[in-house]
């Protein structure tokens, strides 16, 4: 799962750092007992029931209804037909106990688990599931992800109260994983009847182990344990009701406040620990947990409609000039990894292409020389009186200054064009850029198809790439899907249709009281197994 604006080092942070230094006299007095903590929980003995977990979230979610917004935190209020095991990527039973998929991936039949109820007392039936899918389609444009997941849907049939069949007019293998995402979560009929705005404001009713107790926008979300919950998916760490009585999620956007509040035990867990705060948090005896975001890693997407970048050798030269290890070492912490493919290592279907992405400035120079771009008087390459100047458009700068230096070393002048998000999308749609800095989160290889279908792919790899992307979308066999996904990744990397940079991660810090805090497959935090000692 991805988040909205992530706060990275900026002037505010610099000021905060100065302030922190100014009061270091105070801080230095606080005890620095270092403890190593097992979040697996086994070291802390048997799990304990009860208590309130205090969690500081770094942004204010705009909508708590996962059907409408994919960005909210996982509150454990709603569940989906299936669940995805974060370790294996396998889709496992959740609200659906079992399912069958037609061989051509056009029809999916789910058999619902019996005796599942929503927290408003109503029962989970195939009718409610059908109502949900229709409601998501009716949400239309406001449902950010769901539209893509349900594209080409033709019918939802409910032959009996516990069976639901969903049919598409073309192969849609990704749909199985889509049923595990919060975007296709199942809400009660009464919940669906509410206006979209009310549901955004927390009026959602699901089958999950928690219920929304209260929500104050920009301030806090309180979720309470639901007694009688007894249908956790097999990917969960335990069965039965949640262990925590309550989770208080406070919205704390300022990172200095967040870190300070954790260190002074005003919170048990905080989200989005910045790389520069990580050492402080560790020194304070807190553990740092992280999970790599699934999907397409942070990448430079070349605009191949531009003549310079339609040349494969130029793109490959730029990819080889980038030192991905150096970016991690300089700007990040070991919680983040250099990209080793287009997909991140936690994405099902990922294949390791690290060797193709190693830094090789000599070969980068050779490729540029061969393409006729010779070093000019200021080191920047020139051809026919034209300098090798390329721009990159982005909403949030990430490691770009460093990449700029690395490219400068081989004679490429990278211009950084930071734009507002709306301007960014307009420039992107108009094709008015050389590179777009982007990423796309999803724990399924189909993310490659939905993303790269929108790009112009030139050269010999265009057709095989389309074939591979359609191949993985049309097969229900994981081996076939992974094989096709691997072919697609290899084509994208070797011909540099995507220049991968960094695997982004969700980094949280927790006190040693917190145990069994886990991440979902979409890298969102899961409170179901968590307990406090």
């Amino acid at each position: 799962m991805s988040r909205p604006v992530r706060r990275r080092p900026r002037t505010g942070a610099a000021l905060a750092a100065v302030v922190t230094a100014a009061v270091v006299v105070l801080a230095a007095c606080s005890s620095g007992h270092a403890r190593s903590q097992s979040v697996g929980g086994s070291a802390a003995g048997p799990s304990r029931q009860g208590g309130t977990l205090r969690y500081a979230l770094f942004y204010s979610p705009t909508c708590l209804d996962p059907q409408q917004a994919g960005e909210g935190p996982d509150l454990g209020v709603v569940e989906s037909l299936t669940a995805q095991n974060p370790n294996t990527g396998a889709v496992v039973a959740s609200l659906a106990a079992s399912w069958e998929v037609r061989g051509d991936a056009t029809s999916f039949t789910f058999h619902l688990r019996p005796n599942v109820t929503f927290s408003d007392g109503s029962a989970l039936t195939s009718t409610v599931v059908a109502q949900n899918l229709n409601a998501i389609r009716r949400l239309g444009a406001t449902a950010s992800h769901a539209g893509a997941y349900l594209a080409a849907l033709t019918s939802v049939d409910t032959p009996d109260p516990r069976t639901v069949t969903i049919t598409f007019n073309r192969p849609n293998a990704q749909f199985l994983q889509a049923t595990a995402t919060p975007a296709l979560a199942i809400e009660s009929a009464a919940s669906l009847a509410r206006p979209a705005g009310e549901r955004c404001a927390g009026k959602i009713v699901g089958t999950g182990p928690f219920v929304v107790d209260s929500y104050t926008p920009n301030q806090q979300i309180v979720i309470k344990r639901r007694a009688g919950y007894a249908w956790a998916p097999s990917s969960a760490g335990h069965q039965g009701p949640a262990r925590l009585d309550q989770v208080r999620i406070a919205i704390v956007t300022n990172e200095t406040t967040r870190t300070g509040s954790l260190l002074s035990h005003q919170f048990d867990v905080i989200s989005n620990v910045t790389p520069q705060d990580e050492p402080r948090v560790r020194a304070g005896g807190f553990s740092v947990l992280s999970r790599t975001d699934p999907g397409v890693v942070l990448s430079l997407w070349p605009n191949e409609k531009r003549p310079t970048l339609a040349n494969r050798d130029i793109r490959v030269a730029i990819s080889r000039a980038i030192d991905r290890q150096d970016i991690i070492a300089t700007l990040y912490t070991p919680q983040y990894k250099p990209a080793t493919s287009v997909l991140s290592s936690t994405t099902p279907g990922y294949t390791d292409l690290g060797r193709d992405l190693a830094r090789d400035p000599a070969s980068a120079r050779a490729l540029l020389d061969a393409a006729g771009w010779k070093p000019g008087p200021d080191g920047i390459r020139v051809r026919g009186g034209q300098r090798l100047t390329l721009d990159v458009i982005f909403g949030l700068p990430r490691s770009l200054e460093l990449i700029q230096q690395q490219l400068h070393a081989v004679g490429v002048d990278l211009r950084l064009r930071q734009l507002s998000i709306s301007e960014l999308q307009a420039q992107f749609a108009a094709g008015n850029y050389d590179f777009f800095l982007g990423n796309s989160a999803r724990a399924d290889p189909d993310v490659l198809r939905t993303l790269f279908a929108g790009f112009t792919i030139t050269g010999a790899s265009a057709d095989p790439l389309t074939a591979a992307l359609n191949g993985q979308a049309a097969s229900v066999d994981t081996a076939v899907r992974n094989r096709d996904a691997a072919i697609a990744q290899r084509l994208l990397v070797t011909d540099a249709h995507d220049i991968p940079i960094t695997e982004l991660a969700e980094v949280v810090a927790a006190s040693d009281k917190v145990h069994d805090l886990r991440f979902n497959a979409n890298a969102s935090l899961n409170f179901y197994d968590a307990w406090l000692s």
Partner: protein
Amino acid sequence: MTAFAMAREARRPRHPAGGVRPRRRGAGLHGLARRFVQVVFVVWAAFTGAFLALYRMPSDPVTLMLAQRSGGPNVVVDPAQEAALRVEYGFDQPLWRQYGTLLGRALRGDLGTSVQTGQPVRELLTDALPQTAQLTAAALLVAMPLGMAVPIASAHSRRRRIRGMLDALPAAGVSIPSFWLGILLLQALSFHWALLPATGNAGLRSLVLPAITLGLPAAAVIAQVLGRGLRSDLGSAYVELARARGASQSRIVFRHVLRNAALPALTVAGLLVANLFGGAVIVETVFARAGLGQVTVAAVTNEDLPVLLGLVVLAAMIYAVLSLLVEALYPLLDPRVRRDSGEVSRRTSGTRTQEAA
């Protein structure tokens, strides 16, 4: 406006053509109606000005919302989805028609819905206003006594060094950035000594640190204005006269000088309340308090036009009401305003000397 500019403004003699002016007795109802029309005009002008500024901007709340909901600034948004939403929110309509629709709705008290959250704007604002009003009131409770105590103490002090130190305090206070002050207070009183909670809106204890952060710079402004008034008046002829007649220093300060010097300080305090609402943006972010400041930050970041428009209208209403209040307080505090009943106020240093005599 800087503190000095505000002080200058407050000390200027009032003219009938503008600014605060004495009300005619007997013209109360008529005057009230006229003031009401003025308030309505100010709010309408703010609405229209904000609409023109915001809706003509190349902003795009719809794209922002879609990008936000599908994972942040570095994603690609589906143009078809974007266009469909633009129609839904009426952003595809010509500007004049959007203005007509919005104004018509606003007259019925409906400020539209937030693009980001889908919540009614009015609800968003009325939920946040009490929180920020509470914070502003608490900040004023810090600012007023402190802002008055420092210059009064300085006026009483016979030692030059102490007086110099007290006089330097407001200048230092004005130059403290509230972000820095907030973090400093947090580090000391919440993170290190754990005396007060760092975040949240629960209970009075959570109000202490934000109120000090917001109130201290305001206290400094009041102290500057009041201190200036006290210092200049303490050297004037009527004080010499009072001193020659054997009045004690505290009698001179409290009976004579303070009443003269308090008037500009109170005007400034009125303006400060409005400024405190602005200051809440930073303070609420640092202390993670819900309120208008947080709503503003979110609306600006997301270019949420309906919410921004609502905020501007609310701000205009707050300013209008505050200036009415300050004006209503004048006759209570200054007998000359009461007595004048329509004539031009004769507030010059000459009259002051006469009065004191």
